[in-house]
């Protein structure tokens, strides 16, 4: 491992679903490249089906790219790396038959962490996520926002350097996701983790990210990267600032034609 290596390096990665000749064959990713520095937070935005989630799975080693290479800490990815990478999915990824505490402990159980350490690490990360009082509840007894905090606690308890979040706010209502976004920014500002987050919300992307990677329509590749120059943790005042609005509009301009093309509409006429 070279100390200068970026946390994540993605080089010209492509991925296709479906066999050759199958009419349903889809090129999800068509040569995406990206470098993410240690401690950086990058949001991936783009039209539906552009391969954002696919890229996340490839970085996490849950799938193997058809072509191209991915390195984590300078080492090529060849499968899941639970010691280095933790995932946060949509809320349904909590195991319904385990309590919140048991859910948080599960990853450590897979990795053979001793029982006593598991319990204390789980309690610690539940406290960080503000869920200590709900440790023995079952997932279905929690609200959507709390379930997502529980998933975050599960990921934090694994103590990985990298956190991959796949549309973690998708199932939440707008108010909850705004508050959760603030909490997340506060929580992660001091954690020093490298984070990649897939989202559909442009506001959220600007609010949270150091850099926002904008994908083109299918076959997805990274069209442009927009930097957000703002201190962490970010507060509510940033949410309503003209700076955020201006960056969000910039993202929307970049995405507008891509989204039209996925809807099979002609590109907008100039001046419209």
């Amino acid at each position, binding site marked *: 491992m070279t100390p200068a290596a970026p946390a994540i390096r993605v080089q010209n990665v492509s991925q296709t679903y479906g066999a050759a000749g199958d009419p349903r064959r889809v090129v999800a990713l068509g040569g995406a490249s990206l470098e993410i520095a240690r401690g950086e937070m990058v949001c991936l935005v783009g039209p539906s089906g552009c391969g954002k989630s696919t890229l996340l799975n490839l970085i996490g080693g849950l799938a193997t790219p058809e072509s191209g290479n991915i390195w984590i800490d300078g080492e090529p990815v060849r499968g*899941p790396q639970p010691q280095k990478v933790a995932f946060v999915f949509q809320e*349904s990824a909590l195991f319904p038959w385990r309590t919140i505490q048991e859910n948080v402990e599960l990853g450590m159980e897979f990795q053979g962490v001793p029982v006593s350490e598991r319990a204390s690490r789980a309690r610690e990360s539940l406290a960080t996520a503000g869920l200590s009082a709900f440790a023995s509840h079952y997932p279905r007894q929690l609200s959507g926002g709390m379930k997502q905090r529980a998933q975050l606690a599960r990921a934090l308890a*694994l103590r990985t350097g990298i956190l991959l979040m796949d549309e973690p706010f998708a199932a939440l209502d707008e108010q909850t996701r705004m508050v959760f976004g603030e909490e997340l920014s506060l929580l992660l500002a001091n954690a020093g983790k490298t984070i990649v987050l897939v989202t559909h919300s442009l506001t959220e992307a600007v609010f949270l990210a150091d850099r926002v990677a904008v994908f083109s329509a299918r076959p997805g590749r990274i069209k442009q990267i927009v930097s957000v120059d703002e201190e962490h943790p970010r507060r509510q005042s940033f949410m309503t600032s003209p700076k955020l609005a201006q960056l969000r509009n910039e993202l929307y301009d970049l995405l507008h034609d891509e989204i039209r093309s996925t809807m099979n509409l002609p590109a907008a006429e100039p001046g419209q």
Partner: protein
Amino acid sequence: MSRPEPAVARLAVIALLLGIWEVAARAFGNPLFICPPSRVVAAFAALFRDADVVEAVYYTSFEILVAFVIAVVIGFALGLAVGLHRFTRGAMYPVILLLYAMPQVTILPLFVVVFGIGAVSKIAFGVSHGVFPMIMTVAAGAQSIEPILLRSARSMGANRMQVLRYVVFPHLVPSFFAGMRLAMTAVLLGVLVAELYVSQAGVGRFTSAFTQTFQPANLFALIGVLAALAITLNELCRRAELRFSRWCAG
């Protein structure tokens, strides 16, 4: 006027039906064919003093339990194989569906020709009924596992055995018990039909004896005992299912 609880009303309906039966049987019934429920109750006591009848009920219960255990074990293994592997499912599922849709009673005489008139043919016939609902329920359960749970487990470093133990099996617990309930209903049907068809030592011997010698009170009583046995076994499986489907209520 407030209405009684539905459960109370239900008991009242049953009592009313028994009352109508009692009056009608006493007033109009031919005692060769029908008897009032009061006589059936009296026949229960006499029936249980007959050691042969008690023996036959035990014997049939034994056939039911053995058939049930075999059906559950085989059904679970096949259901898992069919549900977890796409290829096995594509190859085996249509064959299993076809076998399930066959009217099995038509091959009952074949079971007797092959396995004889003893307990083995009843058990085999019971298994042939119970195994299919078990396969279907377990296979459906295995297919309904959220892919995100499997991905989530793999992302946390679970190996194949851990995925089975921590994700697949816990997820299958409700399906397992639901399958057991359906298998029990089917096994009861299979074993009892086989008993009624031909029987050496089981209850079928007495149902046909009571029919041929026109003893309605004894016949009603014996059928009542068998129905009670069926209700008890079904209810045990249903309770188990309710208890173990806790996290499904989400």
